[in-house]
């Protein structure tokens, strides 16, 4: 497999570029933002984009560019952490259900079905209402929310691979169940899981924006894209750049990770 082969996939290239760009944007924000993101300047309320404020200012006179940079950290943090929670739990659950099968599979999967019966965002809203709003609880809620989809993917993979000859050969040689799961089957599952993680990442970012939009996610004054969208809403006519720029960055993030996921899947399918 060479680099040219990868570069021929348009979704992969565009998605990858978007993700890298946003990643750089976020990393820069860790060390440098043009203004302190929460600093207010009453004299400069709702200033349109200009030299001193590249992307304008919001209704408190805070620099929108700096806030979007800081918001990117929140978005990445939430994406990475919630996907990690979902992926880890989902993998374990899926592996157990898929590999061992039988009544254990039945019980686990019916439980997962019950979880999936709730629309994801409703489940997250319910969890946040119970545990209280805030960054940590949002991560937890979004992580729990993504467990069903990861465990389904993992389970189907394990069901498929456990019938393969190389697995049967290992069983014949006396390998234990966990050795087979981790050493023999898991490496084959990396590609579909990366695809799922990438899609799950964009889903989490979008869900966090939704929660924050409703006032349940990240608490003000800390910036979050969803919060910024909801705060920008009253000024949609009088200061359109606020909502447009925030929306564009959020869309780029979601689009980037979706395309990346699609691209990886295409290559994986062709190869398979």
């Amino acid at each position: 497999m060479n680099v040219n082969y990868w570069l021929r996939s348009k979704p992969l290239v565009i998605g990858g570029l978007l993700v890298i760009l946003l990643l750089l944007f976020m990393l820069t924000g860790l060390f440098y933002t043009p203004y302190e993101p929460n600093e207010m300047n009453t004299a400069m309320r709702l200033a349109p984009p200009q030299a001193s404020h590249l992307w304008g200012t919001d209704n408190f006179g805070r620099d929108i560019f700096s806030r979007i940079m800081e918001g990117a950290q929140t978005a990445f943090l939430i994406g990475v952490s919630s996907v990690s929670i979902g992926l880890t739990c989902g993998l374990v659950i899926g592996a157990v259900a898929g590999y061992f099968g039988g009544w254990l599979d039945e019980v686990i999967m019916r439980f997962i079905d019950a979880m999936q019966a709730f629309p994801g965002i409703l489940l997250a809203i319910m969890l946040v209402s119970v545990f209280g709003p805030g960054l940590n609880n949002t991560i937890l809620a979004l992580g729990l929310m993504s467990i069903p989809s990861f465990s389904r993917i993992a389970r189907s993979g394990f069901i498929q691979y456990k019938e393969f000859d190389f697995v049967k050969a290992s069983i014949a040689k006396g390998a234990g169940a966990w050795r087979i799961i981790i050493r023999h089957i898991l490496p084959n599952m990396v590609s579909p899981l990366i695809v799922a993680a990438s899609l799950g990442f964009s889903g989490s970012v979008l869900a966090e924006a939704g929660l924050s939009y409703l006032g349940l996610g990240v608490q003000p004054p800390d910036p979050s894209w969803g919060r910024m969208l909801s705060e920008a809403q009253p000024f949609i006519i009088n200061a359109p750049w606020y909502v447009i720029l925030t929306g564009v960055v959020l869309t780029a993030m979601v689009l980037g990770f979706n395309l990346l996921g699609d691209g990886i899947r295409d290559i994986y399918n062709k190869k398979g």
Partner: protein
Amino acid sequence: MKWNKKWVAGLSTVTLLAIIITGCGGNATQPAPTGNQPANTGAATETEQTKIKEGGTVRVSIATEPDNLDPYLSAATDTNSMMDNVFDGLFEAGENGELVPAITESYEVSEDGLTYTFKLKQGVVFHDGSALTSEDVYYSYAKLAGLDGQEPLSSKFSGVDSVETPDEHTVIIKLKGQDAAFLAANIAAIVPKDYDKQSEQPIGAGPFKFVEYQPGQQLVLEKNADFYDKERMPKLDRVEFKIMPDANSSVLALQAGDIDMVPGVSAQGALQLGEGYTIVSGPQNMVQLMALNNSVKPLDDVKVRQAINLAVDKDVIIQTVSDGNGTPLGSNMSPAMKMYYQEGLENRYAPNVEQAKALLKEAGYEDGFDLTITVPSNYQFHVDTAQVISEQLKQVGIRATLKQIEWSSWLEDVYNNAKYEATIIGLTGKLDPHEVLGRYESSYAKNFYKFSNSEFDGLIEKARTELDETARADLYKQAQELLTEQAVAVFIMDPSRNVAMKQNLQGFKMYPVQKYDFAAMYFTEE
């Protein structure tokens, strides 16, 4: 320009779609279409421009869900301002805060100030057709004052000793002691005797009848054709309160013609509406404050509270959050209450970071402390204020975090049980200064500031029995000064109220209390 704005709005909508499509599109409640369009189609002629049109339906947005339809069990101002059209009391609030006789024809106060005699109007009927007599007044007041052996429902009636009804149209009320605030308490609703379904199907004697309440959607009133006061007879047929928690969606709904009136529109919203709408603006006798729980550490130290006051710059808040539409306050009284307002207190804590830091050092909090500001999430105005304040507090080393909670949890946790550190809220205007300042009495049940000061209690008690108006006003002024000196809370501003209406909707009057008198409103021919 018009084309441009539309285009811009369209683009923004597209970017917002990313969020809305996943099903978390906020709480933009779309009013369900009703069969009753405002009657501007069937009208005959279009000759006279400002001709009053009889009938019609007015659709009004309201931000919060009613808490209880029973006037005695409801605490929320929005609910009260809707249901005030259904209920009448012995008096009604007038435009300048005066008391206008409603169900009462005339009244007399005895020389010692202990006996009040009310003569009721003839021919007053409730919405169920039964006549309103002194028996109903007795029943209502007995409930409020707890004379029926139950828990008294209103602290304003705690001074009532007995209610006598010598005949059908006379009510004699005897007080335990002199109470200068008692007369203003008589705006309380009069309800029919032995009717216990007020929470489901309220019945009063007001200009409008209650029709239905659909949670999350609307509350509907219709004209009471048997209303006793022919001069105040409503011209509108129907009032529909559409529940719209989101201020922006109510502005958009007004623009789209789905509603006719938005009673609380922001300065940005007014800007967005542009021409073609009537916007009435004025002080609303509200006290927006950051209440501090005086019983929790470190807020139990007056120096800490004073430091917080010195750290907050009210002018910045007014400019930022309210677009300059507000009056800075220094104590718990709006200048709209001319007679009782103590001037000059708003400058007591001129912003001074150094002094604030010094006070914190004296109190032993040199390195500052953590403070949680609980805000009701449905009031963007208060949430925005909290953001500005948390930024200002940072300068003196106080690390404030915001916690948004739902309105009903706010009422339960903060207002009823005082489980909070700091909160931002607007206290709505009352007609009587006792109701405004009595909130800080240590014996007041909803004293959620947990302020307890015997000197203050003494002043309020004295003012309650003082029948001389000037002397009484003076006592209230002293009480305000004490609140400021003790820095019980950060008194921020009285934000102006902006009411937006369609141009053909007329007759709206501004009151020092949040009151929407739909009996006085009407549509004009276009």
